[in-house]
C-alpha cells in the first residue's frame, strides 16, 4: 500500500511536532537556564501542548482520510553516489506511536512539574527530559534506519543524563553508565545492521528498502538475514529483552517521571517499534519470528516471576515493564505486530499510571522510592491514588472491560491459535502478571500486615499530582475500546490487522487472570507471613532471587573481564613491556655498544698501531683478492 508521495498539508504539523521541542530546548537552555532556572519548564510545557495538538490532528487525519507521506527533508551525508538523508514518514504506525508519546509524555511532563518542584537540578532535569521527548518524536517520525539510529542514540544519551540526574548518588551514576553501555552494546548490532543494509541496498530509507524487498531484488540474502538478527539484537538492548534487560530495574535510580515516561511508556518500547517498523524485513527471515517469540515469552515469564518477589514498589513495576515488553515481543513473534503495537499503547497508559501512583506514594514519604515494608492499608489515606492504581492494575491484569484485556487477549488468541508451548505461555503470562500486580495492590492498599508501618502520615499529592494520574488511568480503562479503529489505522501501514476476539479466548484469559488474582489474595492478605517470615527463613533463596537468578553476577563478571583485559593491554603490555623493552630498550643497547667499543681500544699507542696494522692487512687482502 504505497504512501501517496504528494506533499499534503500534513507535513506542516509533522514539522511543527519536531520544531516545537527544538525551540523550547534552545530557548530554555540559552535564555531561561542562566536567567531564571525555575522557569525552564514553561516553554517546555507549551511545546508539549503544541506537540499534543499536532499529534491529535495527524492521528485524526490519518485515521479519517488515510493521509500519510514519506518525504526526504534534507541531505545529511553525501559522498558521490552514496548518500544518507533526513526525512519524515507519517503513516498509521508512526501516527499511533506519536499520539501515545505525545499524550502520555505531555501528562507526565505536567506531573513532573509538581514532583520535581523543589529539586535543585530542576532546569537541567526538564531540559534533558524534553530532549528525550524530542528524540522519541524524531525516532517515531524518521523515514530511514540511519535517521532512526540518530534519534535512537539520542534517547540513549537522554536516559544517561536522566537516570544519572541525582549524580551525587553513586548508585545513580553506576545505573546511568550501565544503562548507556547496555544500550550501546545493543546499538552495536544496530550500527552493523545499518552498514550491512547500506552495503546491500545502498540506501536505508524504508520506502525504497521494503519496495526492493517485496520485489525480491535482494543482492545478498544471508546479509539481509544477518541484518534482521542484528536489528532484533538492537531491539533486545533497547527494549530490555532477556540477555540485556538488567539495566532497566537499576534505571529506577532516576526520578519517577523518568521511570514513568522513559522506562515504562516510551523509550523502552522503541525496540518494539523498530521490530514492527522493519516487519517486512523481519517477517521474511525464516526462524527469526519464532526466536523473537521464544525470547519474548521467556522474558515475560522470567520478569513476571521476579516482579512477584521484589519489595521495592518501583522495582516491581520495572520488572513488570520487562515482562510486558516480553509480551509485545511474543506478539511480534506470533506474527501479530498489530497486537504488539496495540498492547504497547495500552501498556503505555496503565504502566505510566502505576508509576505515577508509586511516585505519589514515595513523594508522600519524601523518598525517591517506597518499600513494601513502609506502606500498607493506604486506601483510607490516599483514596484517589488507590482508585487510579486499581484501574491500572485491572487493566494490566487484563480483566474484561479494561484496555489491557483487549490487547493482551488478542495476543492470547494468537498464542492459542499457534497452539503448543505458545498457548501455555500465553496463559501462564496472564496469570503471573495478574498475580504480581494484585499482590502489590493488596499489600500496599489493604490492611497493613504486622511488618508494615501503615498509613501513618500519607497524604494525597496536590492537583498537578493527581489530575495526570486520573487521565492516565481513565486512558487505561478506555483505550481498549478503540481497538477496531486501531487495527484499521495499522493495516494502512502494511501491518496485518488485529484478529477478532473469540468468546473461548476471553473465557480462558479471564480464568487465568482470576487465578492469578486469587493466588495474590491468598498470599498477600490471607497469609501475611508469606512475604516476610517464610522468605526470611530461606536466605539462600532470597539472595538468589535478589541476584536475578544469577544474571547480575554474570554481567558483573563480563564487565570485570573487559576491564582486566584493558588493564593487561593498556598498563601491562603497552607501558611495561612493549614501550619499556622494545621501544625504550634501544638507547641503552646503543650505549652498551658504545661501551663495548670503548674497551676495544685503550689509550696506549701500541693498541692504535696494532689496529692500524689490522686495517692495512684487511686493505691489502682486499686489494689482492678482489
Amino acid at each position: 500500500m504505497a504512501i501517496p508521495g504528494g506533499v499534503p498539508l500534513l507535513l506542516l504539523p509533522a514539522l511543527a511536532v519536531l520544531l516545537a521541542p527544538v525551540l523550547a530546548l534552545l530557548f530554555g537552555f540559552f535564555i531561561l537556564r542562566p536567567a531564571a532556572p525555575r522557569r525552564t519548564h514553561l516553554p517546555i510545557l507549551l511545546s508539549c501542548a503544541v506537540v499534543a495538538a499536532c499529534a491529535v490532528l495527524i492521528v485524526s487525519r490519518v485515521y479519517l482520510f488515510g493521509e500519510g507521506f514519506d518525504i526526504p527533508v534534507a541531505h545529511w551525508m553525501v559522498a558521490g553516489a552514496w548518500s544518507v538523508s533526513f526525512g519524515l514518514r507519517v503513516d498509521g504506525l508512526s501516527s499511533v506511536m506519536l499520539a501515545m508519546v505525545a499524550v502520555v509524555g505531555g501528562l507526565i511532563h505536567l506531573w513532573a512539574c509538581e514532583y520535581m518542584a523543589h529539586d535543585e537540578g530542576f532546569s537541567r532535569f526538564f531540559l534533558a527530559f524534553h530532549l528525550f521527548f524530542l528524540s522519541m518524536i524524531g525516532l517515531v517520525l524518521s523515514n530511514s534506519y540511519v535517521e532512526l539510529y540518530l534519534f535512537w542514540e539520542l534517547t540513549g544519551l537522554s536516559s544517561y543524563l536522566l537516570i544519572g540526574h541525582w549524580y551525587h548518588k553513586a548508585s545513580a551514576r553506576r545505573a546511568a553508565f550501565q544503562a548507556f553501555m547496555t544500550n550501546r552494546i545493543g546499538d552495536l548490532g544496530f550500527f552493523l545492521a545499518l552498514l550491512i543494509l547500506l552495503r546491500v541496498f545502498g540506501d536505508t530509507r524504508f520506502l525504497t528498502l521494503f519496495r526492493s524487498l517485496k520485489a525480491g531484488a535482494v543482492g545478498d540474502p544471508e546479509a539481509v538475514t544477518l541484518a534482521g538478527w542484528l536489528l532484533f539484537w538492537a531491539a533486545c538492548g533497547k527494549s530490555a529483552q532477556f540477555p540485556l534487560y538488567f539495566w532497566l530495574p537499576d534505571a529506577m535510580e532516576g526520578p519517577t517521571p523518568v521511570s514513568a515516561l522513559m522506562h515504562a511508556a516510551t523509550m523502552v518500547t522503541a525496540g518494539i517499534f523498530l521490530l514492527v517498523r522493519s516487519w517486512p524485513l523481519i517477517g521474511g527471515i525464516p526462524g527469526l519470528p519464532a526466536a523473537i517469540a521464544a525470547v519474548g515469552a521467556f522474558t515475560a515469564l522470567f520478569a513476571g516471576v521476579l516482579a512477584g518477589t521484589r519489595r521495592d514498589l518501583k522495582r516491581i513495576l520495572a520488572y513488570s515493564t520487562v515482562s510486558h515488553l516480553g509480551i509485545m515481543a511474543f506478539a511480534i513473534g506470533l506474527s501479530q505486530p498489530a497486537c504488539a503495537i496495540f498492547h504497547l499503547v495500552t501498556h503505555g497508559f496503565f504502566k505510566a499510571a502505576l508509576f505515577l501512583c508509586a511516585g505519589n506514594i514515595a513523594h508522600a514519604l519524601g523518598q525517591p522510592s517506597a518499600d513494601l515494608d513502609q506502606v500498607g492499608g493506604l486506601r483510607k489515606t490516599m483514596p484517589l491514588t488507590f482508585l487510579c492504581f486499581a484501574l491500572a492494575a485491572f487493566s494490566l491484569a487484563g480483566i474484561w472491560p479494561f484496555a489491557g484485556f483487549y490487547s493482551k487477549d488478542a495476543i492470547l488468541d494468537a498464542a492459542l491459535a499457534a497452539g503448543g508451548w505458545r498457548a501455555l505461555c500465553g496463559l501462564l503470562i496472564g496469570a503471573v502478571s495478574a498475580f504480581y500486580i494484585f499482590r502489590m495492590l493488596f499489600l500496599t492498599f489493604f490492611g497493613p500486615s504486622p511488618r508494615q508501618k501503615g498509613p501513618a502520615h500519607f497524604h494525597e499529592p496536590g492537583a498537578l499530582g493527581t489530575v495526570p494520574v486520573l487521565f492516565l488511568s481513565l486512558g487505561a480503562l478506555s483505550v481498549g475500546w478503540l481497538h477496531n479503529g486501531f487495527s484499521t489505522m495499522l493495516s494502512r501501514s502494511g501491518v496485518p490487522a488485529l484478529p477478532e476476539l473469540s468468546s473461548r479466548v476471553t473465557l480462558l484469559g479471564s480464568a487465568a487472570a482470576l487465578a492469578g488474582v486469587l493466588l495474590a489474595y491468598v498470599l498477600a492478605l490471607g497469609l501475611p507471613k508469606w512475604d516476610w517470615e517464610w522468605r526470611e527463613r530461606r536466605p539462600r533463596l532470597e539472595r538468589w532471587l535478589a541476584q536475578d537468578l544469577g544474571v547480575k553476577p554474570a554481567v558483573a563478571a563480563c564487565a570485570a573481564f573487559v576491564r582486566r583485559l584493558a588493564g593487561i593491554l593498556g598498563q601491562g603490555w603497552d607501558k611495561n613491556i612493549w614501550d619499556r623493552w622494545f621501544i625504550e630498550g634501544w638507547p641503552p643497547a646503543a650505549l652498551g655498544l658504545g661501551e663495548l667499543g670503548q674497551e676495544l681500544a685503550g689509550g696506549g699507542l701500541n693498541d692504535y698501531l696494532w689496529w692500524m696494522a689490522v686495517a692495512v692487512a684487511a686493505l691489502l687482502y682486499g686489494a689482492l683478492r678482489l
Partner: protein
Amino acid sequence: MSLSALWLLPAAAALLAACCGRQARAVALGAAAATLGMSLMPAWAGLDSLSRLSYAGPAWFYGIRYSVAVDGLSLPLLWLTAFLTLIVILFSWRGRFSSGYWAAFLALEAALMGVFLMRDLFFFYLFWEAALIPMFFIIGLWGSANRRHAAVKFFLFTFAGSVLMLLGFLVIVTQHHLATGVWTWDMELLKSPRPGGALGLASFLALVVGFGVKVPLVPLHTWLPDAHTEAPVGGSVMLAGVMLKMGVYGFLRVAIPFFPELCWRLLPWLGGVAAVGVIYGALCAMAQQDLKRLVAYSSVAHLGFCLLGIFSRTQEGLAGGSLQLLNHGLTTGALFLLVGALYERGHKRGLSDFGGLAGRAPWLTFFFGVSIFASIGLPGLNGFVGEFMSLAGMMVRLPVLALAGVIGVTLAAAYALPAFSAVFLAEPGEGSVSAMISDLSALEALTLAALVLPMLAIGLHPGPLLALLRSGVGGLAL
C-alpha cells in the same frame, strides 16, 4: 595572494616574536589571525579555482623545485592548523610565557602549513621534519614533570620513521630517473612509472612506517602518550590536533597515489593494523588513570577510523576518513584544552584527583560533556559522521574490519563516560583538588565555544565540507 605567504608569514612572525620580548604575545596573535584570514581567502575565491593558486619555482638542483599548491584535501587541513593555532594562542593568553613560547608556536604553524602546501617531495620532507624542532622545544621547555624524556623520545622516534621515509623517497626518485631519465621530485610527475617488484614493496613499506609513526599505527604509537601527557596545553592541542594528521595526509598525498595497486593488494594488512589500532587504543584508554593519557590513547583509536575509511578506497570511505581528520582535530583539541585548564588550576591530571566539578564549574562540565560525546561518536555531533562513513566504506571492502571498527565505537563509550563521571559527577575523594578548580574564564569559554560549534555544524550538515574533501581525495577511489 600567493600560497607561499601562508607559511612565510608565520615563519617571519616567529623570528620577530623571538626577538621582541614582551610584545611577542601580541605579534603571535596578529600573525595567527592573519594566517587564518589568508587561509580562508581561497574559499571565497571559489573552490573550483583552487588549482590557479599553485606556484612552482625554478627547478635548480637534480629536479628539486619549490612548488606549492592547494586542493580539496589541503585546504581544510590548512584551516584546521590556522584555526587551532589561533585557539591555542588565545587559550594561553593569560599564562606568563617567554617570547620563545610564542615564537615556537608560530614556527610550528609555519612548518605545518608548509607540509600541507608543498607539492615537491623534498620540501614536503623538509617541512615534515622541521615541524619536529618547535614541538621538541615546546614539550621540553614548557612541559610538565618528565618533559625532557618525552621530548627526546618524541623527536628520535619520529625522526627514525621519517629517515626511513626519506630513503623511500630517494629510491622512488632514483627509480623514476632510471625509467625516464628525468630528475624530478614533483609529486605529480613521480606517479607515472612506479618502482615495481621487491624495491617497490620495500619503498612502500618504508613510506608506511614513516607515515605510520606519525599516524600513529599501533605498534609505533608509544611516543604519543608520553608526548601528550608531558606537553603543555597548547603543545598537546597542536600535537593531537594537527601533527597526527600529517601521517594520514602523508598516506593520502604520497603513499596511496604512488602505490595504488600495492595499497590495494595489502589492504587486509593495512586495514588490519588500523582496526587493531582502533580496538587497542580503546582498551588501553580504559586502563588509564591519567586524563591526558586517556585522551592520547583515544586519539590512537580515532585515527584508526580515519585509516579504515581511507584504505577502503570507496567514495564514502575516503570522504569519511578525511572528514574524521578534521573532526578529531576539533574534539581532541577541545578535550586537551579542557584537561589543560584543569591541570593549570589543580596541577593534577589523575581521574581520582577531581570530583564533583559539575556543581562547581558548569561551563567546564558542559564543554567537556559535549566534546566527550562528540569523540565517542554520538550521532548529531561530528564524530559520528566521520566514523559512520569510514565504516560504511570499509564494510563494502572487508566486513570483518568494519566489525572491529564498530566494536571500537562501542568501547569508546566504555572509557569516556566513566572518566567523565569520575571527574565531574562523583563526590570529591580525599586528596582531590576540585576545591581549587574555578570555572572557565570568558576568553577560555569563547575559544571552546569556537571549537564546539563546528562540531554540531559538521554533525548535522557535513555536506559542503564533504564535497570539498571529495574534490581532493575523490581521485583515489577504486
